[in-house]
């Protein structure tokens, strides 16, 4: 008490702070009453709230304990929040008589799958012996590639790269693979795709082709059988006129191992999930994929709703985009690959081999001039294939079904030629004032160890690097081509024209009664004349 400081004798408050002399002396009770007042105050604080069952005394105790334990800064500013938090904590403990079910968050399941990647398969030793027989190791060195791309700032985190590495090892142990490569990652709305570009061993591919052909012929036979039954039923009823529309002949897909189907692709959503093989791509799918632009959802069986309607589901769309990206952006240093010298050089040559005498040019040259890089994947023609085919060539089945009408409606298809296989990328057209490729060195500060990086501007997300004899291509992105203008969807085709007007269909007014009578009279006259002529002729004989 005495908070006003010592008073001097001449000041009015002098002596009033001594007990017994304060101006309120008659109001403050003595010590016992003071203790009673304190007890009353405490009892008031201990009063339990009717709503929540808490009392202020305990609440303050808990708050002060918490503050003194945690000692946050600027406590007075956050005191209300602390008070709220304490209240919330109280509620949880008191009112829940049931215990929450112990939720297993999906984190742990995923961690289990990742751990499974690290476990060696049982037949490991046998596989190692086989690999030695084969020669080159099939497993790509994903970590090495990741290191080079990281110099350019491209790539996934190291953990994810290692999981992908292990996932590839699994893939190789399960499927009969000759060579394989990490193609890249395509992002989707719900899940992403990790894509492996693979060449299967030769025997395996033929077996799969035969299986596919058998499936197709079985399906066709079923359709023909059903068609015959329907025809028998229809013969009893008069048939409506058949339309004369014949869809344009379907362009056959390229054989496995050539052109757009040169490689087989396996995808998985995350490393640890099973690998799924993508079906081969057909030209119709590529042509349609060029006209639509859709996000991938991450589920391979999702339908693609678009116009023009895409012939397939998301797995086919993904495969078509992969084919387009590979054809447009897979490059290698010029001279690394060459055409084999034994075979004649055809323009449609599809094979190339490594050039043993390749000398890698210095990095500075690779960055400055785009002529030091060449495509090693054939470009896709407008038709949707790498090698042009005349669609009006008939197969045996077509000839069986009435072909005379088709011959009359043949259209002339112009043969399309694309660029030959190892063209330099300096010949790629840019869009407006943007070149098709951007070349950079990974670092200007340490030129001795820098590598050349290429970024594609036509397919944002496609990168390539070259360093000495090593080079690699990769794709990280959403899977769409860059277009300076906005995407304009195809317009629906014009409505069908009406049938041409022929005399049999044009309207004419019905003849009136007088006209009918006049016509009948004229006919009878003509008959009478004809009979007279016959009689005359008969008489002549």
């Amino acid at each position, binding site marked *: 008490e005495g908070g006003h400081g010592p008073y001097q004798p001449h000041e009015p408050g002098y002596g009033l702070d001594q007990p017994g002399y304060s101006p309120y002396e008659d109001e403050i009770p003595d010590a016992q009453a003071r203790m009673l007042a304190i007890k009353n105050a405490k009892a008031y604080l201990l009063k339990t709230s009717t709503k929540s069952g808490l009392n202020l005394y305990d609440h303050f105790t808990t708050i002060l304990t918490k503050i003194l334990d945690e000692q946050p800064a600027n406590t007075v500013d956050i005191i209300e929040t602390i008070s709220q938090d304490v209240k919330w904590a109280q509620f949880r403990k008191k009112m829940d008589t049931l215990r929450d079910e112990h939720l297993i*968050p999906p984190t742990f*399941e995923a961690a289990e799958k990742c751990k499974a990647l690290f476990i060696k398969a049982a037949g490991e030793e046998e596989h190692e012996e086989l690999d030695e027989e084969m020669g080159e190791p099939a497993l790509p060195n994903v970590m090495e590639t990741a290191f080079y791309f*990281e110099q*350019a*700032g491209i790539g996934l985190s190291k953990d994810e790269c290692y999981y992908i590495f292990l996932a590839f090892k699994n893939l190789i142990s399960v499927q009969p693979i000759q060579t394989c490569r990490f193609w890249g990652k395509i*992002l989707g*709305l719900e899940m992403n795709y990790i894509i492996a570009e693979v060449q299967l061993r030769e025997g395996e591919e033929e077996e799969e082709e035969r299986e596919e052909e058998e499936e197709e012929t079985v399906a066709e036979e079923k359709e023909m059988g059903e068609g015959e039954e329907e025809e028998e039923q229809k013969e009893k009823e008069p048939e409506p006129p058949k339309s004369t529309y014949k869809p344009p002949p379907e362009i056959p897909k390229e054989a496995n191992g050539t052109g757009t189907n040169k490689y087989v692709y396996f995808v998985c959503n995350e490393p640890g999930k099973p690998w799924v093989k993508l079906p081969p791509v057909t030209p119709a799918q590529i042509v349609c994929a060029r006209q639509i632009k859709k996000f991938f959802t991450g589920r391979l069986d999702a339908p693609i709703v678009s116009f023009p309607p895409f012939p397939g589901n998301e797995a086919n769309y993904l495969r078509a985009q992969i084919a387009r990206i590979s054809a447009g952006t897979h490059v290698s240093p010029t001279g690394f690959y060459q055409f084999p010298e034994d075979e004649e050089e055809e323009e449609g040559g599809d094979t190339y081999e490594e050039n043993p005498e390749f000398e890698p040019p210095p990095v500075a040259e690779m960055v400055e001039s785009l002529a030091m890089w060449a495509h090693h994947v054939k470009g896709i023609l407008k038709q949707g294939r790498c090698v042009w085919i005349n669609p009006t060539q008939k197969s045996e089945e077509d000839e069986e079904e009435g072909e005379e009408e088709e011959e009359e409606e043949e259209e002339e298809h112009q043969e399309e030629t694309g660029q030959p296989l190892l063209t330099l990328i300096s010949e790629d057209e840019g869009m407006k004032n943007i070149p098709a490729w951007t070349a950079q060195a990974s670092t200007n500060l340490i030129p001795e160890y820098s590598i050349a990086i290429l970024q594609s501007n036509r397919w944002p997300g496609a990168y390539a690097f070259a360093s000495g004899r090593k080079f690699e291509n990769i794709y990280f992105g959403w899977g769409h081509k860059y277009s300076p203008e906005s*995407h304009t969807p195809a317009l629906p085709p014009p409505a069908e024209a009406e049938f041409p007007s022929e005399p049999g269909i044009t309207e004419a007014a019905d003849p009136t009664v007088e006209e009918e009578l006049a016509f009948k009279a004229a006919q009878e006259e003509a008959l009478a004349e004809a009979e007279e002529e016959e009689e005359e002729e008969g008489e002549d004989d």
Partner: protein
Amino acid sequence: MEALSLPAALSLVAGGGAGLSPELRAALGASLPLLERDYRFERVWFWGCIQGVRGAYYIAQGLGPDRAAPRSRLYSLNCLDWSLLTPATEEMLALAEEVKGRFQGDPSFEYSLAEINPKAAARLVQSGKEPVMKEEARLIATIEQIDRAVGIVPRGAFVKTPLGSVHENRHFEGLSLVEAKKLSSYFHFTEPTNLKNKTLLEKADLDPSTDFLNSLEHDIPQGKGSWSIQLEKGGSVVVLRSLLWLGLTFYHVPMTKQFGYVYFGTGEKNLDLPFML
């Protein structure tokens, strides 16, 4: 993303394949603290990188005591030397909407407006300026647009004090896994526009100190929205990617205080979004 947590954050956003090379990371580690010292920022965020045809722009933001105040933005071509950008004006924003195509990579490049928008060019000529738009101005406007449209923070990470200024919430312990999957748990970190349009029922549930921003639920197109939410690493990181500005990635580790967003892209709006969903 916070400059201090850059290394950890970059590995969490790397799912999209874009990142920084070790050289640039090291350069940022050295130059961002210097920025903080020179400009007396309280926080420095590394905003991201806009890829031009011939070079890339690296952008950093500095924040003062009020986190919702207009931020200072700086750009650099090599992550070492930073130049301050002037704040965006409405005129710049309007002009930038007209200019389409990639950034060139050279800040002094001039887009000739006469080809793109003759009316705007005429207006500029009348007011005595040349009918061009500098790439720097386009850069400023693009960053502002991206921040306004898709700069997001988790709910509860920032609180508004009674005085009106916005601070980080020290009691924010992260969203739970269930909350993290919902779009309504994330807010745009800009001036709210539709808070007043909510019904009284909805407003009753809001807490004015934390719910003072627009949530992501109402982003056009509704339904699937313009965001892709993914749980990576089995739910230990939630990553939101914007579909409107392709390249903006937001990450948050549930039940922790780690969150941030970064932009790695070409700086172009994805106007084909309605066709692609």
